[in-house]
């Protein structure tokens, strides 16, 4: 013991006295000056100590308070000095508050643990929160705010309010104020204060505010013979109207106010248990395959007292009429629940409004995906009238081109910039080859074109499967496209979808420009309307058809890169888009790029709309959308934007 003390003293002397250490020893001195109040704290005396500790502004105070609260502070009997203590198997290991060094290990009799009672510990906790909330280190303050936000409790409100004013960091101050509002709505002492806090929250729509409102408005289902006066009633049920008789009776049974109904399965079990001499309840078992006979048998058993009697419909009815069913708020104050209800209604309206905005963004992004997938088709099918069932496979080829490029160029930004023109080149070449070899021989034979290009489609799909395998290949987007543009807790859109939207707009402009403003576009339109006349004007229809088809296919390749960025690249990805793309073109109106845009917008909005009504089921959304399109074509066979006059071709 003495040796240990000497060693500790020698250690103290050897250590250079740093500034922090000096402050720590100040803390020790301060504590020793309140020796009696620290050693035996009571609710009345602890306030003075806490006030002094707070005033001292010493760095070790929070740590000390934590240890004090968790009963880790010990006092040495011999001289009344405080230590941080830890029980080991040799005795009590004492650590100096002043130096943070292990000073000695003493026997159990030589030091005693300080055990603040529950009330004091609570006060310590409150003070501790305050210390953490106004800690000079911003990370500790943020951590304390996070902890409160995660598990809010009533006693945190006061220290939080106290810590707002001196907060130097503006963002954290705003968070503290907001958190204080959330806590105030639930835990403020004064009813008026709480209502004010609730009303202040009604302008928000974030998840935590909605959670607070729901917590304020939690209800319990109750049943009684008459409505009690002393509770805050949320809703009184009208049995048969907004509460089924079965559910109401189940509540009665759960509240032990009525006997449980005997189900058919229980009747069967009871009968099986009471089979004797080939009969149960006086009826031979052979006849018990009939529900009426079973009931008779069961009633006979009940009359004999072997089983509980059945609950008849009349019993149920009388039990239901003699009871009232109602919901009671957990919150006793009617004024507060009324304010919360009003605030929740307002928040819900705001959330619904924002959800509509989010839905519009979703629909827009889906529409731009459909548009990108279909715009190539709008040229080959819409303008040229060629059915290309392999269009989806061109999309796939574009996506795989992007994947291959990423294997060689590891920088994702550069690789995407390389992949886009390369995908265009690859699918342009494939499109020109296909036009030269197959489609050229089948103009004016659209049904044969359909089947021949379908043959190419399955061949290309299988080829991709043979080369790249059946598993999905990733096409990774650059880091600056990760994440989402978040407006609030409801409205957000990922950057990739914005990029696809931008790409779709660029292509809309590009296609319109080429078709309307360039020599090539003029020749394309001329050949489409009347090849013979165009040829006699000196246009080479063969060349124009080849270029147009190549252009449409090339755009499919670029769409493939864009689609591959947000969906996986598989050999079947094109097939997923082909029917939808044809729908888009047909619904929009053949031969018109604006029509394709209208078609994509309509199909995208419609699909999202149906998904919104029935969110669990995207398959159903697609089914209903296709049915709608079939019906739509009945009424506008030429699509939304129908060509008129000679351009219509008939």
């Amino acid at each position, binding site marked *: 013991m003495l040796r240990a003390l000497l060693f500790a003293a020698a250690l103290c002397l050897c250590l250079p006295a740093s500034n922090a250490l000096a402050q720590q020893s100040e803390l020790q001195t301060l504590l020793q000056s309140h020796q009696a109040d620290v050693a035996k704290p009571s609710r009345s005396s602890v306030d003075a100590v806490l006030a002094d500790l707070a005033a001292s502004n010493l760095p070790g105070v929070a740590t000390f308070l934590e240890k004090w609260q968790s009963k880790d502070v010990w006092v040495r009997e011999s001289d009344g000095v405080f230590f941080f203590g830890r029980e080991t198997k040799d005795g009590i290991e004492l650590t100096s508050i002043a130096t943070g060094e292990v000073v000695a290990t003493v026997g159990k009799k030589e030091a005693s643990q300080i055990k603040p009672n529950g009330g004091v510990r609570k006060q310590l906790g409150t003070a501790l929160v305050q210390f953490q909330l106004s800690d000079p280190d911003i990370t500790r303050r943020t951590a304390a705010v996070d902890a409160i936000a995660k598990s809010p409790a009533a006693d945190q409100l006061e220290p939080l309010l106290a810590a707002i004013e001196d907060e130097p960091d503006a963002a954290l101050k705003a968070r503290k104020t907001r958190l204080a509002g959330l806590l105030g709505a639930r835990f403020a002492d004064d009813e008026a204060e709480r209502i004010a806090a609730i009303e202040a929250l009604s302008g928000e729509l974030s998840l935590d505010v909605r959670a607070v409102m729901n917590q304020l408005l939690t209800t319990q289902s109750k049943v009684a013979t008459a409505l009690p006066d002393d509770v805050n009633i949320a809703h009184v049920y009208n049995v048969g109207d907004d509460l089924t008789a079965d559910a109401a009776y189940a509540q009665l049974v759960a509240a032990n106010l009525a006997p449980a109904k005997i189900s058919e399965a229980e009747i069967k079990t009871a009968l099986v248990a009471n089979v004797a001499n080939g009969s*149960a309840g006086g009826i031979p*078992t052979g006849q018990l395959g009939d529900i009426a006979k079973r009931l008779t048998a069961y009633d006979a058993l009940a009359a004999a007292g072997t089983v509980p009697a059945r609950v008849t419909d009349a019993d149920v009815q009388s039990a239901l009429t003699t009871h009232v069913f109602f919901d009671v708020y957990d919150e006793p104050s009617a004024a507060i629940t009324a304010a919360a209800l009003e605030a929740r209604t307002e928040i819900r309206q705001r959330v619904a409004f924002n959800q509509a905005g989010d839905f519009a963004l979703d629909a827009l992004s889906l529409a731009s995906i459909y548009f990108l997938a279909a715009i190539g088709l709008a040229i080959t099918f819409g303008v040229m009238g060629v059915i290309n069932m392999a269009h989806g496979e061109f999309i796939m080829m574009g996506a795989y081109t992007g994947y291959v490029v990423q294997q060689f160029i590891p920088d994702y930004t550069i690789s995407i910039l390389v992949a886009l023109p390369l995908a265009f080149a690859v699918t342009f070449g494939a499109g020109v080859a296909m036009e030269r070899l*197959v489609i050229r021989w089948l103009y004016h034979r659209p049904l044969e074109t*359909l089947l021949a290009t379908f043959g190419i489609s399955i061949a290309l799909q*299988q080829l991709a499967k043979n080369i790249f395998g059946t598993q999905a290949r990733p096409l990774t987007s650059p880091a600056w496209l990760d994440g989402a543009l978040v407006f609030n807790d409801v409205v957000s859109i990922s950057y990739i979808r914005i990029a696809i939207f931008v790409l779709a707009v660029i292509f809309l402009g590009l296609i319109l420009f080429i078709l309307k403003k360039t020599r090539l576009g003029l020749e394309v339109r001329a050949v489409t309307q009347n090849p013979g006349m165009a040829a006699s004007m000196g246009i080479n229809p063969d060349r124009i058809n080849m270029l147009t088809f190549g252009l449409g296919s090339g755009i499919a390749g670029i769409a493939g890169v864009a689609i591959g960025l947000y969906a996986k690249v598989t050999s079947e990805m094109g097939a997923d888009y082909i029917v939808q793309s044809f729908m888009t073109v047909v619904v929009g109106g053949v031969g018109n790029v604006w029509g394709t845009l209208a078609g994509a917008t309509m199909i995208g909005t419609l699909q999202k709309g149906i998904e919104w009504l029935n969110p669990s*089921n995207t398959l159903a959304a*697609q089914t209903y959308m296709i049915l709608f399109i079939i019906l739509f074509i009945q009424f506008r*066979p030429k699509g939304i934007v129908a060509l008129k006059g000679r351009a219509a071709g008939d």
Partner: protein
Amino acid sequence: MKQGLLSRNPSILWFLAALGLFTLGITVLSEATGTGLISTSFVKTLGKTLCLCLIAIAMDVVWGYCGILSLGHFAFFGIGGYAIGMWLMYARTEAIVAESLAASPIPPTAQEIIDATGTQIFGVVGSSDFPLIWAFSHSLTLQLLMVLLFPGLLALVFGWLAFRSRVTGVYLSILTQAMTLALSLYLFQNDSGLRGNNGLSGLQNIPGFEAVPQSQISIAFFWASALALGLGYVLFAYVTSGKMGSVVRGIRDNEGRVRFLGYHVESYKLFVFTITAIVSGIAGALYYPQAGIINPAEIAPIASIYLAVWVAIGGRGRLYGAVIGAAFVSLLSSWFTGGGAPDIPLGFYTIQWVDWWLILLGLSFVAVTLFFPKGIGGLFDYLTHVKTPFRVGDYGPDKGALRQEEGHEQ
């Protein structure tokens, strides 16, 4: 001059004779009724192929004769399969459930059996109640009626909507494809009432014939399929011959002219579309008990496109061409994909037909469309020295009209 059905369609006798000989040959070689040279599974494959030939004839009538490239007939085939599958599954499950419940000390009520059957069938999609669509599944007669009614009504309603608004050509094809896609997506849902993507299974077990070995059941279904194919051939030969047939072919080649001649084109098209749908349903009802399982993937649009492929390869516009195409391609396909075809080593790479068969099929399909528009059936013209009549241009201006090269005298 009035001619009989047979003299106008000499192919009927040839076809029936060939089909009869084939059936006899298989019967003699099968396990149950003959020497056992052919395995039961191969008898099933042949029986299924006969059903595919039947739907191929239906497809040929609607496409090759009427000019409607329907990409939805396999949906009708699937509906027929589902209709019969519901009874097969219900009756068999009910028998099993009743047997297991009979072990209890008191006999089960009718409701208990139905509930337990429902749990057995729909447990896999997390449900136990029978949806409304199963209302008739307890009765074989009613379900057989459904085999005819479901495809027939769907085709009638869809066809009426489509033909009424004069949707033709490629648009009609895409519309039928959309219908097929919608149907298969609907069936893929778990709450569609038809077990979602699990489909209906265990259909090869015929209720009431549990004791009969599969070898006998398979040959019985083979006979039924052969009979259905024969009857279907005669029916469609009748439909496509005579005045009716002329009008239908006229619609294919030049719909506008037929309309101006005073025929109600929509009714003819609707009749052809509906009757081929019903026959497709029958073919499906015979096919799936032999296949044993049906699921929504069978209805996917690609199946209907393959159907068009068979007809085109066989030669459209002639019934026996469709039969040859369907039998040839589907048997060849199962030979290639089943590992029957030998690999071809090229030194640097070995062509495995499981991987390359689809590419071969796709390319050969392009080749047939481009170079052999008459398909395999065209060989018969070559053998019988039928001369293609001299024509300038195609048979008519319509999209589905026969091409100059496809032509032959009817």
